[in-house]
């Protein structure tokens, strides 16, 4: 039983790290398409790791199947809304964001 718990803790922590990275990307990336990219990575991989981690704790069969269904639904909805946002951004054309870009470039240089 203890191995199942270790498995859960490791994978959920890894998932949380992906969410944190996604949040940092959302805050710091220079343009909207990159921010969208960071967000969808966090959603798909982060949630995927959390779900796989929780599978070790879920009851068979309904708990496990519900978790997997939840993951698939989030991937479907996240993918579709990501495409829609990207399509809207593409249609609106490139927007210069000089102040944010300057900030991000300076921070990226400074924090690494």
């Amino acid at each position, binding site marked *: 039983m203890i191995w199942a718990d270790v498995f859960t803790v490791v994978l959920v922590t890894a998932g949380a790290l992906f969410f944190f990275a996604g949040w940092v990307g959302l805050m710091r990336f220079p343009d909207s398409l990159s921010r969208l990219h960071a967000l969808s990575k966090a959603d798909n991989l982060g949630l995927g790791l959390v779900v796989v981690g929780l599978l070790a704790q879920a009851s068979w069969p309904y708990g496990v199947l519900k978790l997997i269904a939840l993951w698939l*639904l989030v991937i*479907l909805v996240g*993918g*579709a*809304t990501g*495409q829609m946002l990207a*399509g*809207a951004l593409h249609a609106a054309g490139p927007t210069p964001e000089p102040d944010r870009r300057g900030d991000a470039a300076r921070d990226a240089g400074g924090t690494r």
Partner: protein
Amino acid sequence: MLPDPRLADLPLVVALLALALWLIATRHDRSAIIGFTAYGLIVAIVWVRLGALDVALTEAALGGIMGLLLLMAAARLGDAPDGPPPTWPLRVLVGLLCGAVTAGLAVLVLTLPEPAPNLVAAVAEQQSATALKNPVAAVLVAFRAVDTLLESAVLALAVIGLWSVGADAAWGERPRALDSDAPDPALVLLARLLPPVGLVVGVHLFWTGADHPGGPFQAGALLAAMVALVWLARLGAPPPVRSRLTRVGLMLGPLVFLLIGLAGVVAADAYLAYPEALTKPLILLIEAAKTLSVAVALALLVAGPPALPRARP
């Protein structure tokens, strides 16, 4: 030693307070609405942590639809022009009034009797009479049936109010607020894949509501969201407001509730009382009709007032 498990809720509380402050401080309608929707989702998680799953489901389902309605209203109204800043006496007055409301609420919360009066024991004692295992459902449809009846009538009134702001010439036409010229292909794909799942989950929420968290409002909100998704992707269109079927669907819930309630005067011994042998089937009938009417009402609220077709350039 493990730390106090309540510490796990600390991030939730911080996020809630920070988002609430930001909501008040932000100057843009759209950001405020998106923030408000996110706030509703965090509140739903708080309800889960408090063990109130029925409330959490309602908050999440209805909060999402509310967010959509507010966004559409904001898009229609546009950004309000900045007027002259309020004068100092006005600011002081507003500050004092807000402070007074906050202080009043604080005093009320801090002077609540200990233990707080509640009816949990009374509900638990009488619950077996309703043949429902979910105490929330028992309260809603049996013990406080009048409130629930009025609630379902209010939604129908809201739709009538929305329809009455349409232009005179457009009366009888169909709502067109969700119409777009070319829906995104990703949206169309989503509107093909998601509704079957949403339909099953919605009916499950209704059916399980008797014994577990769930019920007509949550189920109706989910079904309405699926219908609105189909309308948004233009895979279907809202029915014209002159459609008799739509109007029957809208009124069926309150009507069935009212008729069974009136029949209770004769068959049982009071208005809105159920005869003992038929309690469960009657409650099921009322809840099914209400699920349908809530779904129809919320979908129609999202669809907007009746409008004339847009002139093609």
